[in-house]
C-alpha cells in the first residue's frame, strides 16, 4: 500500500481487523517528573504516559517522540510522546486549548503553513521522520489526510471536490477519476445520496453531507492515515451517528486519529485514547480502561466532568 520512502516497522502478517487494541500504560517514568527550562505557569509537570503496543496485529503507524511545539515564543506542547497503532482509531481528548489540534496538525505538517511555528522532537511515520528535509510535504499530506471541524467543500461541483486530490497529483484520465470519485463516495457512505447530482455544487449539500464529502475527498487521495479534528462537532445527532459509523468502517483500512470533545464519542469509536491537559499528554491507554479506570487524577476529573 505504501510506496514512498520505505520503512522498518511494517509487520506484514496477522492483518485481520481486530477491533480491540491492547494498550498498556507503562507508568514507569512516573517517578521522575522531568524539569524543563521554559517558564511555565504550572507548578508540577504531569508525567508523560507512554503507550506500548503489544498486540502484533497493530504495529505502530505513527510515533511522536518528545514533541515540543511553539507558536512564536508561546510553547503549547510539552514533550508529547505517543504511539498510534495502525488500522485503529486513536482519540485525543482534553479541555479546550490544551493542544489537541496542534498535536494533530504536527502529524501531517499542517502547522508548517502558519508563520512562526517551531517544534522539537520527532514525528515518525512508519519509522521515517516526517520533518526530515528530504521529505516532500505534498506527498506526506497525501498519505496523512485531514478532515476539519468545519466542513470545507470547495465552491465547485461534488465531482470536482472529490477529484481534486487525484487531479493535483497529476491524474488526468477521466474514467479513472470517475472511478475514484465513485469509490470514495461509496466508502464515505454518500454515494447513494449524491450519485444523481455529481455535477451540482457541493455548497448545496447539508452540513452532514458536506462533512462526509470532505471525508470522501480525503479518501480519494488514498491516504494511510486520516486525521480528524472534531469532525462531528458541528453536526446534528443523526449526522454524527453516520459519521461515527463511517469512522468505525474506515478503521478496517485506515489509521485514524480523531480529536473530540465528546467523551461518549471517544468511547464509541476509538480503541486508544490520549488525554491532553495544558499541552501535556497526561495519560494514554486502551480506551476502555482509560475511561473506566484512569490512572491519573486529572484524567479522572476530566472524564467525570469534575474539571477545573
Amino acid at each position, binding site marked *: 500500500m505504501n510506496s514512498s520512502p520505505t520503512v522498518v516497522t511494517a509487520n506484514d502478517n496477522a492483518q485481520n481487523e481486530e477491533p480491540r487494541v491492547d494498550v498498556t500504560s507503562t507508568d514507569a517514568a512516573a517517578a521522575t517528573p522531568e524539569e524543563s527550562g521554559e517558564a511555565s505557569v504550572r507548578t508540577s509537570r504531569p508525567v508523560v504516559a507512554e503507550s506500548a503496543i503489544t498486540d502484533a496485529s497493530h504495529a505502530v503507524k505513527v510515533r511522536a517522540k518528545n514533541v515540543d511545539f511553539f507558536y512564536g515564543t508561546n510553547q503549547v506542547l510539552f514533550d508529547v510522546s505517543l504511539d498510534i497503532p495502525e488500522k485503529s482509531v486513536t482519540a485525543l481528548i482534553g479541555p479546550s486549548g490544551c493542544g489537541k489540534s496542534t498535536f494533530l496538525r504536527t502529524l501531517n505538517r499542517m502547522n508548517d503553513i502558519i508563520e512562526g511555528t517551531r517544534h522539537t522532537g520527532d514525528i515518525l511515520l512508519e519509522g521515517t521522520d516526517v520533518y526530515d528535509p528530504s521529505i516532500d510535504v505534498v506527498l506526506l499530506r497525501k498519505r496523512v489526510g485531514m478532515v476539519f471541524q468545519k466542513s*470545507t467543500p470547495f465552491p465547485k461541483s461534488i465531482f470536482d471536490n472529490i477529484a481534486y486530490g487525484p487531479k493535483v497529483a497529476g491524474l488526468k484520465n477521466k474514467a479513472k477519476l470517475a472511478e475514484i470519485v465513485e469509490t470514495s463516495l461509496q466508502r464515505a457512505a454518500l454515494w447513494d445520496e449524491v450519485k444523481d447530482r455529481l455535477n451540482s455544487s457541493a455548497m448545496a449539500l447539508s452540513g452532514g453531507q458536506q462533512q462526509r464529502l470532505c471525508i470522501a475527498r480525503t479518501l480519494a487521495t488514498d491516504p494511510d492515515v486520516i486525521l480528524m479534528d472534531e469532525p462531528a462537532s458541528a453536526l446534528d445527532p443523526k449526522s454524527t451517528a453516520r459519521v461515527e459509523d463511517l469512522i468505525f468502517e474506515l478503521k478496517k483500512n485506515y489509521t485514524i486519529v480523531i480529536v473530540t470533545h465528546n467523551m461518549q464519542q471517544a468511547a464509541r469509536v476509538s480503541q486508544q485514547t490520549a488525554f491532553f491537559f495544558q499541552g501535556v499528554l497526561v495519560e494514554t491507554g486502551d480506551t476502555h480502561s482509560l475511561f473506566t479506570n484512569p490512572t491519573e487524577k486529572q484524567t479522572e476529573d476530566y472524564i467525570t466532568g469534575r474539571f477545573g
Partner: protein
Amino acid sequence: MSTASASDVPLSEATTSLQRSASFTRLKESGIRSLLFLCAALSILTTLGIIAVLFSNAIYDVSPRQVGRDGEVRPNEAFFQQVSVTEFVTETRWTPGYTEKHFGIMPLVCGTLMISGIAALIGLPIGLCSAIYLSEYAAPRTRAIVKPVLEILAGIPTVVYGYFALVFVTPYVLRPIFQDMLGFDVGVFNAASAGIVVGIMIIPMISSLSEDVLRSVPRSLREAAYALGSTRVDVSTRVVVPAALSGIIASFLLAISRAIGETMAVTIAAGQTAIVTADPLGSVATMTSYIVNVSKGDAVIGSIEEKSIYAVGLTLFLMTLVMNIISQFVLRRFREVYN
C-alpha cells in the same frame, strides 16, 4: 383578595424625570445628523445634476428659448433633436467640425474600445498576478513594501502617464520593436502607447480590489487544499482564484470602466483621428479625447458641434454605468457564497 385590581396597588413616586429636555447636546446631535445627511445628499444631487445637463443638451432641451441682441432666435435644440439616433449609431463617419457634417459615434467607440482592450490586455493579467502574489505568496514584510509602491502608481497624475506614452513608450518601446524590427509604421500618436499606459494605470486598482477578494477566501479552504496534497500553486490557481472568481471579474469590470473613462493620457498619446480602424499603431480618437478637444477648441456655444459632446458624454456615461452595474451584481453574488 384574589380580585384586587391593579388600581388598588399604589404606584411608586417618580424619582427622576423622563421628560425630554431641549438641551444643547440634543441640538448639537440633530445638527450633526443634518450635516452628515447633507454631505451624503450632495453627491446624489451632483449625479442628478450631471444627468440633467446631459439630458437637456443631448436628448431634449428644456431651457427657455434665447433671443440674441439682434433679435435672432438662437437654435436651442438638443443634439438628438437635430441628429437622429439611427444616424448616430449606424453612420461610420464622425466629422462635426467639417462643412459636411456626419455624426456617427462608431469611430469614437472604436477608438475607445481599442485602447481599453489594449489596456485590459496589459492591466488585467499583471494586476491579477500581483494580487495573487500579494495575497498568497508575499511575506508580510514584502507586502508592506509592494503595496505602497502600487498605491504610488495609482497616485501619479494621468497627464504624466500621457507624456510618458508620448516621449518614452512610443519612441523607445514601440518604434524599436514594431517599426525597426517588424517594419510597421508607428505614428507619433498611436492607440498602442495610450493603451499600454492606461493598462499600467489600472494595475493598482485591479491588484488591490482582487487582493481583497482573494484574502476574503476563508483560510479553512486553503488548509483543506493543502491537506489534500496541494502545492502553493495548486492552492492559488485551483482553489483560491476559482473561489474568488466573481470578485475578480467584478474588479476587472470596474478597471475596464475606468479605462474607458480615462481621458488625459489618451488625449495626449492617442491623437485625434476619428476613424474606424483596426490598426493600433495609428492615431485614433476616443470619446473622452473628443470631448476634451471640443471643449478646448473654438466650437460656438449652442452649435451642433458643441452639443455633440453631450451626446458623446451620454454614451460614455451609459457604457461605464452598465459596466459598473454588472460588476456590482457580480460582486454581490460573490459575497453570497461565503455569507
